[in-house]
């Protein structure tokens, strides 16, 4: 008889994926990244165990929004202090820390559970074409072409 959890926490070896975000639309790209982080592309998927893969994103500063979102979309959050509602547009965010644009998008697409904070750590975003993970990527091509067998 099969066991529901074929994958144990210790026996999980995540695969590494490389994504070039240049000229990709933020949300649509995030849609493809999120399932990889969750592990839903694997037949050994278990919801109670972190079985996702690691995704390295480069050129995150060259990501695109359609329409007037660069100026009109607003990220809002509250600091907790009175009068502490803060706002920032993607354009401003690009100046401060461009990686956060994509990270926020992906974060919103992950399941809101205890594994989420762990999953987002597997997402490594870099604003330029350089990344420190040369050794870990074994020729994994851009995922937008679809995963290999």
């Amino acid at each position, binding site marked *: 008889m*099969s066991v*529901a959890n*074929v994958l144990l926490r210790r026996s999980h070896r995540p695969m590494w994926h490389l994504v070039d975000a240049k000229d990709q639309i933020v949300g649509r790209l995030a849609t493809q990244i999120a399932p990889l982080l969750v592990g*839903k*592309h694997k*037949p*050994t*998927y*278990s919801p109670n165990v972190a079985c996702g893969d690691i995704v390295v994103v480069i050129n995150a500063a060259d990501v695109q929004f359609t329409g007037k979102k660069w100026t009109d979309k607003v990220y809002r959050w509250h600091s907790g202090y009175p009068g502490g509602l803060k706002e920032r547009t993607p354009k401003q965010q690009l100046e401060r820390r461009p990686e956060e644009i994509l990270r926020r998008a992906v974060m919103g697409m992950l399941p809101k559970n205890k594994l989420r904070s762990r999953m987002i750590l597997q997402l490594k975003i870099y604003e330029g074409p350089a990344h420190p993970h040369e050794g870990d990527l074994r020729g994994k091509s851009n995922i937008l072409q679809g995963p290999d*067998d």
Partner: protein
Amino acid sequence: MLRIMSRVGGAALSAWRHPNHVLPLAPRAAWQAFPPSAVGSAMAQQERSMASKKHKAVLRQTKGYRGRAKNCFTVAVRRLQKALQYAYRDRKQKKRDMRTLWIQRVGAASRQHGMSYNQLIPSLNKARIELNRKVLADIAATEPYSFRAVMDTVRSVKQ
């Protein structure tokens, strides 16, 4: 101002009402008629009431519960009731949840072979493969070559 009460309980009241009438204290010798061995030692054997047995039975089942629910009967019994309700409901839900998981896994495996789940199922029917989702999920996870064989069969029948 109360007088000293008599050891004989009923006379205490009259001692208060009649202060000039001093009642005799029961002589120590009177207790000679009731030696301890005849009465039975009050401390040597505790009588277990039926209530504490029932309480213990409940508390034995609430180990690991949070807060007072693991130690105090009145709280524990409510939590235990809830736990049993959840257990009843979830025995039924478990069957549903497992099927959902199998479908997710089969879908993932199927996509690895270039077909989506909703394309796979009618193709399986057409190929008269009656393997159920549970088995398919198991094969997909543990016997990848067998699963590939299934996919190939399905694709060949599709033509």
